């Protein structure tokens, strides 16, 4: 009787072990699904999971992606983390976007301390909230200060390469909310540093001015007074920090008031639908992590573009799509290299991953100002040319030369 009982217990425990091996590896994603960034990021994650499973999964197990909608709301984003941890019992957290939402999620992430690979959220405030001790936390998107530094480096190199390009006088039009004001303050700091011969804009900025406007996204949309001030200032580089809803009316009102700066740069977090098809978009410079044209210079970017369209019957229209794909593939690469899901081993493996991403840049982990596991550290400088987004900097992945000066 005892022997039979022992056999049954051993068999039961063995079967539990086998079942555990057959359980999928669960990845929990939080994205704002009503917004194109979150929507396409989630679809790109689905593509990555499909490709992984088609190739036999990870460690002999299938991968399952569970996506929860944050609705761009901090409280929903935080509740999504709790739901994924307690109800779905996911192994990893991935996602997401919006610094405001992410700051609300950080206490929950700290509570569960699962390995987290976060794609979006650029505010240094989110970085400070994570703190230096979260070794389980990996962040892919460049932080806001890293983005600003990379633009300075980019413009310096572009001006060095193209003698006719001048960046001496900069005018920043910024939306009067937190996003725009933070951008203005960053530029003020860069200018102060540049005056002492320091920082990314040293040697290229001579004068700087700015004016605020009320974004169309927040009930504004009237820019003419601000644009007349910019016209009077006569900048070499005009940059506006607002939202996608401002893009076309801002350009159109610029034309209306006869404002034609040599460099017209837009720095919104996203662009309106079919912006490139609008005749006003030609020669507008923008900042971003990715452009569809990258597929001309990168095999993985081309692979991502082709497979995404094949699976979802739509084109990727935001860099959050290739970033979402990268989010999953980077984790998968780490798991493959670690050969286990054991936390400490996997963290170490992820720190050593070098992933050739569809964003045209190799993803490697290095420390940032606060956290120890930061991924990308720079943005790209892009330009709309004849209805197409071209990469003009960094030069190693550029797809076209800058068209200068901007004109109507």
């Amino acid at each position, binding site marked *: 009787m005892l022997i039979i009982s022992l056999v049954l217990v051993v068999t039961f425990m063995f079967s539990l072990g086998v079942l555990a091996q057959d359980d999928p590896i669960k990845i929990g994603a939080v994205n704002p699904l*009503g*917004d*194109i960034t979150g*929507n396409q990021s989630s679809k790109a994650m689905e593509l990555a999971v499909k490709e992984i499973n088609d190739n036999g999964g990870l460690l002999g197990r299938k991968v399952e992606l569970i996506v929860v909608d944050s609705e761009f709301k901090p409280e929903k984003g935080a509740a999504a983390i709790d739901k994924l941890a307690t109800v779905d019992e996911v192994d990893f957290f991935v996602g997401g976007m919006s610094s405001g939402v992410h700051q609300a999620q950080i206490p929950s992430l700290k509570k569960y301390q699962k390995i987290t690979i976060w794609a979006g959220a650029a505010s240094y405030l989110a970085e400070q909230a994570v703190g230096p001790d979260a070794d389980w936390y990996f962040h892919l998107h460049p932080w806001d200060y890293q983005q600003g530094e990379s633009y300075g480096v980019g413009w310096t190199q572009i001006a060095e390469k193209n003698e006719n390009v001048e960046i001496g006088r900069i005018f920043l039009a910024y939306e*009067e909310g937190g996003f725009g004001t933070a951008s203005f303050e960053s530029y003020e700091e860069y200018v102060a540093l540049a005056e002492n011969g320091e920082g990314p804009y040293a040697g290229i900025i001579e004068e700087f001015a700015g*004016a*605020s*406007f*009320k974004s*169309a*996204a*927040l*009930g504004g*949309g*009237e820019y*003419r*007074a*601000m644009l*007349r*001030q910019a016209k009077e200032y006569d900048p070499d580089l005009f940059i506006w920090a607002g*939202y*996608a*809803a*401002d*893009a*076309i*009316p801002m350009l*159109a*009102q610029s*034309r*209306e*008031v*006869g404002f034609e700066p040599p460099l017209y740069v837009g720095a919104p977090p*996203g662009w*309106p*639908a*079919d912006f490139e098809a*609008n*005749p*006003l978009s030609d020669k507008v410079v923008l900042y971003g992590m990715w452009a569809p044209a990258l597929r001309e210079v990168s095999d993985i970017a081309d692979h991502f573009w082709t497979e995404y369209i094949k699976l979802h019957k739509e084109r990727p229209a935001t860099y959050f799509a290739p970033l979402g794909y990268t989010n999953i593939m980077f984790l998968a690469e780490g798991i493959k290299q670690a050969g286990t899901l054991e936390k400490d081993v996997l963290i170490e493996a992820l720190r050593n991953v070098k992933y050739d991403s569809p964003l045209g840049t190799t993803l490697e982990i290095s420390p940032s100002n606060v956290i120890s596991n930061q991924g990308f550290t720079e943005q790209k400088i892009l330009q709309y040319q004849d209805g197409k987004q071209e990469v003009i900097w960094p030069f190693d992945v550029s797809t076209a030369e800058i068209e200068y000066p901007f004109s109507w």
Partner: protein
Amino acid sequence: MSFSFKNSYKILLLFILFMVVIGIWNPNALLDGLQRGSLYAVIALPLALVLGILGVLNLAHGDFLTVGLYIIYMLNTRFDMDPLVSIVPTVIILAIMGAVIYLLTIKNVIDEGHLSQLLITFGISLILIEGINIIWTSMPRNVYTNYAYAAKEVAGFRFGTYELLYILIAVGVLVGLQLFLKKTRLGQATFAVGQNPKGAKIVGINVNYVYLFVFTLAVAILGVVAGFMLPRTSIFPAVGSPFSLKSFALAAMAGMGNLNGILFAGITLGIGEAAINSIPNYGGWSDIVFFGVLIIVILARSYRGAK
């Protein structure tokens, strides 16, 4: 529903003086303000009409404008129809939509007090916004037409020409509404219902029909506004929401049922806003000035009323 020039000549003189001063100081601010203020006024007129006749503050007012903008966007992208031509089908679609929504919802709370009315229109607003979000996502969209950003330069003074249409539309809608209220039987019945619904019912006016007609007309007017607005604006699910608040502010500033006053209030606030925007580094103050002027006017009117 009238604004007597005879009784308000001092206000009228002040209004003209204000425009002259701004015009001398900064002609661009005057023109921008006239155009913007006329837009505020033409959007506020239908809200004031519903508020004056039905006594309902429609919190979904701006969202009906959003629906109109998306209908015109759809007609443009699917059928390549010019936004100005799309006004005709859009007005018809919005009128039907307004009538159906009135019959299904607002009609049932018309005698239920302001809280129920506010809640139900707030609910309609949320449904419209989320419905648009589901269909078109939150991504901003635009329709580009070359004529909407045309500019003229006269003696070194450069100005956009398209938004001058806003002034014409605002005056046109106002005159149309006044003629309707004074010169037609239905308009006179509407006026009577707005003054005293019980009395109007006693003399045989079909009050429910008047309510239905006024609400339908108000929503349909937003179709006209949407057609003229679309070439100049980005659209997204919440694009119309801020106009609900501004429209209510204008209605409050003009005084209940004062349609003429809404045009003056809209232009005054529009010019004030444009003047503030023209002062370097003070653009962020425009909302404070907008609502500050509103509060001062309401307080001044209360003070005058108390005297």
